[in-house]
């Protein structure tokens, strides 16, 4: 269907109409993962064009929505009708969402896309991953190009309230950190006075950096790039003394450098960066689905339900909490417009939160990030999900 795009009624993200980008669409040709991998440089320019396009779309599409009665969830209806979940992910960040050699996507953010697809469509393959860079991610969600943004995005008040977006939870508790060369012998971030620091535009890290240095009365020279790849390249070529972003990203990016051992990540975290999935405001049911898929993964870990033992649990577990989670008691699926075994699908698809974490970020991955703050509350971490009851 190359060269066509559809204007669909009743799905409604802008004025009751939304424009979708199908496979090979002429409207957003650069969205295809294969193209991004071939031409990442061109893509960075394409995103500017896209931002303009999306802004133009917002102007042109008529506001018909006020007149029509909205269905229970326009996003849910649209996803079911389309049969595919459009999920915005990172352009490539190992551990969160990165394309693999088989053309699929791996990482905890990609797994969350799969989990939602499993809950809604009962098929983890029915996800279309749309790689977005930091600058274009919100516009993509606002305009309806993606149904869900699962792209290591920091939950802040302005994003949650003035962008028309809603954060559904925290999938990873993170903080801004700095990577430098070991040869500089730095002990603390404050030792970076007068240094050139590379960071990515359109991130909270950029703001945190300015705040931190101003608060501490020290100067620095900012060097800002649009893509994380460019930030890393500039750092690597010696343009900057340090590079700042979320610590999890630094751990991931550091492994891409040639001489990994020459670089270190300073231990301080200078900010709170709670990363979480985002949906559009105003679709309460869709927001609930995304939120409770995350909570189901956390509750499953807490209750010891895993990808492997899920069937066994269904057959044998007498624990009412587990039985509610697995849809054997109560009608919790109904409340979010899904089948009652929605959580079983999620767990069978990606495992519980702990499994997803270890597979992508923890011991099962090259990153080997300890659970730390992302451990369950009962293990001394911050991950705490409200109960299913």
């Amino acid at each position, binding site marked *: 269907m190359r060269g066509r795009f559809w204007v669909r009624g009743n799905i409604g*993200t*802008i*004025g009751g109409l939304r424009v979708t980008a199908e496979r090979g669409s002429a409207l957003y040709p650069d969205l295809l993962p294969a193209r991004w991998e071939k031409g990442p*440089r*061109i893509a*960075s*320019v394409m995103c*500017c064009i896209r*931002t*303009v396009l*999306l*802004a133009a779309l*917002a*102007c*042109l*599409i*008529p*506001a018909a*929505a*006020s007149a029509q009665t909205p269905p229970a969830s326009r996003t849910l209806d649209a996803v079911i009708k389309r049969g595919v979940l459009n999920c915005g992910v990172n352009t490539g960040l190992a551990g969160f969402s990165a394309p693999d050699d088989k053309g699929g996507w791996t990482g905890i953010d990609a797994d969350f896309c799969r989990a939602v697809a499993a809950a809604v469509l009962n098929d983890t393959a029915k996800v279309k991953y749309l790689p977005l860079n*930091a*600058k274009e991610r*919100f*516009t993509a969600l*606002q305009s309806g190009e993606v149904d869900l943004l699962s792209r290591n995005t920091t939950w802040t008040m*302005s*994003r949650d*309230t*003035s*962008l*028309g977006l809603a954060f559904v939870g925290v999938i990873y508790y993170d903080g801004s950190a700095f990577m430098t060369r070991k040869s*500089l012998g730095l002990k603390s971030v404050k030792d970076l*006075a*007068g*240094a*050139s620091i590379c960071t990515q*535009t*359109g991130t909270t890290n*950029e*703001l945190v*950096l*300015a*705040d931190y240095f*101003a608060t501490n009365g020290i100067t*620095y*020279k*900012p*060097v*800002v*790039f*649009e893509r994380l790849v*460019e930030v890393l390249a*500039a750092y690597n*070529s*010696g*343009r900057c*003394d340090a590079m700042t972003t979320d610590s999890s990203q630094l751990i991931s990016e550091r492994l891409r450098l040639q001489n990994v051992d020459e670089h270190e990540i300073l231990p301080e975290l200078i900010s709170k960066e709670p990363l979480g999935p985002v949906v*559009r*405001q*105003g679709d309460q049911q869709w927001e609930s689905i995304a939120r409770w898929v995350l909570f189901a993964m956390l509750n499953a870990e807490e209750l010891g339900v895993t990808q492997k033992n899920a069937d066994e649990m269904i057959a044998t577990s007498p624990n009412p909490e587990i039985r509610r989670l697995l849809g054997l008691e109560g009608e919790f699926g109904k409340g979010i417009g899904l089948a009652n075994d929605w959580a079983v699908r999620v767990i069978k698809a990606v495992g519980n939160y702990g499994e997803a974490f270890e597979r992508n970020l923890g011991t099962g991955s090259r990153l080997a990030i300890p659970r730390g703050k992302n451990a369950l509350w009962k293990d001394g971490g911050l991950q705490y999900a409200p109960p299913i009851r």
Partner: protein
Amino acid sequence: MMQRNPQPLQPSSWLDPLYDPKIRGIIFQVLLVLALAFLAYEIVTNTAANLRRQNIASGFDFLSRTAGFDISQSMIPYKSTSSYAAAFFVGLGNTLLVAALGIVLATLLGFVIGLGRLSSNWLIAKLSLLYVEVVRNVPLLLQLFIWYVAVLRALPMPHDAKPIAGVAYFDTRGLHTPLPLLDQGGWLIAIAALTGIALTVWLNIWARQRQEQTGQRFPLFWSSLGLVVGPPLLVFLLLGAPLHFEQPTLGRFNFDGGLTILPEFLALLAGLAFYTASFIAEIVRSGIEGVPRGQKEAASAIGLSNAQALRLVVIPQALRLIIPPLTNQYLNLTKNSALAVAIGYPDLVSVFAGTVLNQTGQAVEVVLITMAVYLAISLLTSMFMNWFNARMAIVER
């Protein structure tokens, strides 16, 4: 002869004016204007309604809010506590700076290479041809990456940088040179300079009138130079040369103090200037070749040297052919400067349509402002070039 049925005159009706092509034309134009106005109204109100319904902030209030981010290069005082409006002006200033310098360099280089294409020296002509064909056929974005990466990779780290001419340093962080600072009397020197420029303008007008009346020429170049340079220099010396240089000094990480020219700026400037110069060279060559041969032969016949013939006869006529396409190239260069975002130079698109757009989420407003700015810059450039073109056109007597 065709036979016409004699039609009785219809009684006049209120519809009659519709058969008048003039009135019909006016009616159609009014309808078109109404339709366009309606469309514009719908676009504006729909956008506002949609943004409100989606709970996306709108309006231009954000411009006065605190920006909260830093910018690597700024021609006006700016820090992270400045407003988004200040960030806008920083980006605009950076765009104008690189565009203006790029235009000057591209023009100079383009003229040299364009003349080189016409050189009777085989080597110079072929080298110029090679330059034009290679540079104009490689995409600008690629060239920018080549400049940026090549410039960066080849340069030493700050601690390994060797001084150039004893005072300047060129490292991965940019070109560091001493910064001349006036201790006092800056405004006196500025007044002297302005006076000198005013006198030069007056002198030029007077000399032209005198030449038209008496045919006597006046050594305009040297006297103008003297008038522009002389007064400020005199005031400067009378004040006791109150000038000192701030030297760049190596700190723990970087050179501090002095003047630092960022590598992003140098790469963008070089990319834009060299790329556009290849097009300007072709415009100059075709403009000169467009002047009839007879003109040059006539110039030789009255005893002008080759250089004189070029300067006094050929180029003034060639300019008429050169200026309109040259304007296009200036506009292209200015708009191409938006590619800065790819190599981290803080131009208008990078700072305003990039960071500010992302931090505020107000895509519609930010993109509109950015488009309006580029439109304004382009129209102003066009206006200036049209004025210049009109001045250069042959005056029909």
